C-alpha cells in the first residue's frame, strides 16, 4: 500500500486539453475525473504476432506477442502525426503488471485481463489459444484493460504502468525491484484465510455478498448462452443440407428445377450466415466475462478490508489484554482466570525483581501496541475511504457498461432477425417460382 495516494504525475506533455480533444478521444466513456494518463497519451494494442522461443524449462514454445502503440495526444492535436512508439508484450507480462497493481492498490477494483484460456466455449470455438479469432478477441481485451487502467484516477499515475507502456526491456527488472512478488504471495494466502471479524462494516459485507452473486449469475448466464449458441449453430447448419439436396433434385426436374436451384443457394447462404452472427455474439460474451472477472476483483477489495479490520481488531484486543496483564501484575489481583494466576497459586508468587522485569517488558509492549493500533486504525480508515470511493466508481461504470452491452445484444438480435427475413423472403420467392 506504499503508493496509495501518491499522485506523482508522469512527465509527458502538458496538461492542457480542450473539449474538442475530449470529443475526439474515442475512449470518451472511460475518461475519469482528474488528470489521467489517457488524456495525455493515446494507447492501443494494435497487432498480434506469433513468436517462438524457449520457456522456463528450456523447451521450444510458440507464443503470441501483442504490439502496444503509444502517442502523445498534444502532438496529434497540434496537427503533427508522429509515428507511434511501440513495443511488444506477451500475455504473461500483462499478468505481472496486473498482479503488481493488485498488491500495490488493494483498495482499488483493478480491471481484469481477458481470460487466459477460452472458457464457456460452445462446440464450434476451439479452446485453442492459437485460434485467430481467440487471439483477436484477446487483443481487444488487452487493449480494453490498458485503457481502463490508464483512465483510472489512481492507477493511471503509477510509474510501473508507464514503464510497461514505454520501456520494452528493462520493465521486468524494474517491477521486480518493487518487491511486489512477496506481497503477492502473502496476499493470496490472506485472501483465502478464514477469520471472523467482530464488527464488520455492513456496506462491505453487502458489497462482498453482491460480488459473489455477480460472479455466480454471470457465469450461469455465460454457460446457458454458450449452449444456446451451440443450438443456433446446429439449426442453421442443418439447413445447409437443403442447399445440397435441392441442387441435386433440381437436376431431375423440368419446371421446378430453376426454383429449386436458387432456393438451394439461399439455404446455403442461411447456413453460412450463422458464423458471423455467433462471432459477433462472442463479443457480447466477452463483455459479460469482463464483469465476471471484475466480480472477483471486487470481492478481493472487500476481503482485504475484512483482513485490515481483523488486524485492527486483533491489535486492539492484544493491547487490551496486555493492559490487563499489567494491571494484574501491578495490583496482584487476578481478575480473570489466567495461567499465571494458577501457577502463582500452585508454585507461589515470583520475586519482586521478576515482577519488575515483567512489568517493564509489558510497558514496552503496550507502547508498541498503542502505536500499532493507531497505525492500523489509520490504515483501516484510509482503506475504507479509498475503497468506498472506488467501489462507487465501479458500480456506476458497471451499470453503464452492462446497459450498453444489453443494448448491443438487442442490436445483434435485430440484425440476426433481419438477415433471416431476407433469406427466407428470397427462398419464398424461389419456391413460388417452382
Amino acid at each position: 500500500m506504499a503508493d496509495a495516494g501518491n499522485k506523482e504525475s508522469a512527465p509527458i506533455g502538458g496538461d492542457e486539453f480542450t473539449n474538442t480533444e475530449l470529443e475526439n478521444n474515442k475512449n470518451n466513456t472511460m475518461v475519469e475525473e482528474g488528470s489521467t494518463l489517457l488524456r495525455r497519451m493515446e494507447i492501443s494494442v494494435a497487432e498480434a504476432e506469433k513468436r517462438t522461443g524457449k520457456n522456463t524449462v528450456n523447451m521450444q514454445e510458440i507464443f503470441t506477442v501483442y504490439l502496444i502503440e503509444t502517442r502523445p495526444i498534444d502532438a496529434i492535436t497540434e496537427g503533427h502525426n508522429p509515428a507511434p512508439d511501440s513495443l511488444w508484450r506477451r500475455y504473461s507480462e500483462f499478468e505481472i503488471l496486473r498482479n503488481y497493481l493488485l498488491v500495490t492498490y488493494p483498495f482499488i477494483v483493478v480491471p481484469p485481463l481477458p481470460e487466459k484460456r477460452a472458457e464457456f466455449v460452445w462446440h464450434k470455438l476451439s479452446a485453442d489459444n492459437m485460434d485467430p479469432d481467440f487471439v483477436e478477441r484477446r487483443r481487444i481485451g488487452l487493449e480494453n484493460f490498458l485503457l481502463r487502467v490508464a483512465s483510472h484516477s489512481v492507477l493511471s499515475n503509477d510509474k510501473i504502468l508507464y514503464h510497461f507502456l514505454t520501456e520494452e526491456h528493462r520493465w521486468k527488472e524494474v517491477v521486480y525491484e518493487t518487491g511486489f512478488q512477496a506481497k503477492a504471495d502473502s496476499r493470496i494466502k490472506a485472501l483465502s484465510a478464514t477469520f471472523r471479524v467482530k464488527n464488520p462494516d455492513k456496506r462491505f459485507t453487502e458489497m462482498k455478498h453482491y460480488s459473489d452473486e455477480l460472479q455466480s449469475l454471470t457465469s450461469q448466464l455465460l454457460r446457458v448462452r454458450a449452449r444456446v449458441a451451440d443450438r443456433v449453430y446446429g439449426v442453421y447448419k442443418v439447413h445447409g443440407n437443403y442447399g445440397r439436396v435441392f441442387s441435386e433434385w433440381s437436376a431431375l426436374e423440368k419446371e421446378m428445377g430453376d426454383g429449386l436451384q436458387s432456393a438451394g443457394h439461399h439455404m446455403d447462404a442461411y447456413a453460412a450466415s450463422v458464423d458471423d452472427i455467433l462471432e459477433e455474439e462472442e463479443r457480447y460474451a466477452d463483455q459479460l466475462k469482463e464483469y465476471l472477472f471484475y466480480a472477483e476483483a471486487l470481492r478481493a477489495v472487500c476481503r482485504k478490508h475484512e483482513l485490515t479490520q481483523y488486524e485492527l481488531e486483533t491489535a486492539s484486543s492484544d493491547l487490551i489484554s496486555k493492559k490487563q496483564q499489567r494491571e494484574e501484575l501491578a495490583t496482584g489481583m487476578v481478575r480473570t482466570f489466567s495461567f499465571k494466576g494458577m501457577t502463582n497459586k500452585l508454585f507461589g508468587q515470583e520475586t519482586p525483581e521478576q515482577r519488575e522485569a515483567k512489568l517493564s517488558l509489558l510497558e514496552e509492549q503496550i507502547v508498541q501496541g498503542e502505536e500499532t493500533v493507531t497505525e492500523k486504525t489509520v490504515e483501516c480508515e484510509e482503506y475504507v475511504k479509498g475503497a468506498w470511493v472506488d467501489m462507487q466508481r465501479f458500480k456506476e461504470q458497471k451499470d453503464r457498461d452492462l446497459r450498453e452491452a444489453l443494448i448491443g445484444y438487442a442490436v445483434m438480435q435485430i440484425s440476426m432477425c433481419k438477415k433471416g427475413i431476407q433469406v427466407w423472403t428470397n427462398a419464398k420467392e424461389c419456391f413460388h417460382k417452382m
Partner: protein
Amino acid sequence: MSRTIDAVVSPTQTNTIPADISGQMLDLDEDDDLEVFSKDSTLADGNMFNASMQTSPGSMVNQCKFEEDEEGDSKDIFITVDNPESHVTAIETFITYRVLTKTTRSEFDNSEYEVRRRYQDFLWLKGKLEEAHSTLIVHPLPEKFVVKGMVERFNGDFIATRRKALHKFLNRIADHPILSCSEDFKVFLSAQAWELTTYKKQGPGFLSRMGETVRAVANSVRGVKNRPEEFTAIQEYVEDFSNKISCLDKVTQRIVKEQKEYLEELKEYGPTYTLWSGSEEELAEQLKGVAGCIERCCKETEEQVGHLSDTLVPVLHEYVLCAETLKAVLRRRDNIQAEFEAKNETLATKKVDRDALKEEIDKLEDRVEWANNALKGDWGRWQRSMRGDLKSAFFSTAEKNVDYYEKCLAVWETFLLSQRTEPSEETDRDNTP
C-alpha cells in the same frame, strides 16, 4: 391420347415357359381379365380409354374420361375425415374415424353420408383400388405403425397425424377421374358398418388372390424384355426422386429436432436474466426487459416448430411413401408386359391351341396397352400434384419463417426503443449488412 402399341414382342421368340405355371395362369386369370379388360361389346365404344373401370361386372354407370380436369372443373364430392373415437371390445381396442361425404354425383343414392371407418377399412379400400387399377397411382396411406418415436398407437399426435393423412388419402381418390368412379370407393363412403363387412366378403376369393400373388412373383422372376424407353426413364426418375425426397424428409426431421433442442435451451436462458435482475438496482429493468424478449421469442419458436411439424414434415413423408407406390406401380406394369411377352413366346414355341392362345394374347396385348396408357396419363397427373404439394409446403414453410423472424424483430425493436431515452446514448450499430 393416341393409341399406340408399345410391346414389341416377336411371336417367333423361342423361350419356353414351364407348362404347369402357364396352365395355372390361364385358369385363374380369366374372370379378372374379362371383368376389367374385356373387349366385350357391351362397352360403349372400342376406345380403351373410355372403358368403365368398375370392378363389379355390369356396373357401367359412369364412363369416366381420363382427361385432366385441372381448372374450371367443379368438384362434386366433398369428404372429411374427423372425430377419432376409441372402441374397446373383448378382443381389441381400435380407433374409428368419422367419414363425412357430401356429393351431387348421380351414382350415389343420397347427397350426404356419415359413416365410421377404421384403419383396416382404409387398407382394404386401397387394396381394392390397386387390384383393379394396377397401374394407376393411388395416394399412399399413412403407415401402420410408426417405427421410431412413438410406440403408443393411441398417442394424441399420432392419431391427429393419421387422421390428416387419411383425409388427404380419400380426397385424392375423390379428385381422381378414374379412381373416384370405383364401386368400392362408393361403398366405402356410403355403407353402414355391417353392410361394408358383407360387401368385403364378396369378390375374388382366397384362391383367386393367391393366384394373383403367384403370378406376380412368376412375372417378376421372368422379368420384362422390351420395356419402352419412357418407362425406363420414369423408373430412373423415381429412383432418384425417392433418394432426394427421403433425404429431405430426414433433413427436415433433423431441423425439427434441432429447433426443439434450441427451444429447450432458450427456456432456461430468459430466467437467468430475471434471476440477475434480482441482484441489481439500476440494471434490473433492462435485465427484465431482455428476459421478456427472450420469453416472447420462445413462444414464436414454439409456433414455428409446430408449423414445420404440421405442414412440411407430413408432406415430405407422404412423398417418401409415394415414391414406394410409384416403384410398385412400375413393377406391376412390368409384370403385365412380362406376362404378355411370355404368352407370345409360348405361341411361337409350343404346340398348343393356337386360336385360343391367340385370343388370349390379344387380350393381354390390350391389357398392356391399357396399362401403359393409364400409367402415362396418371404419371403426368401425379407430377403435377407432386409439384403443387411440395411447392405449397415449402412456400408455406418459408412464409412462416419470415413471419417468425418478423415477430422476433418486433420484440427486440420494442425493447431497444424503450432503452433509447436520450439521443446521446444512441449507438448507430443496427445497420450491419
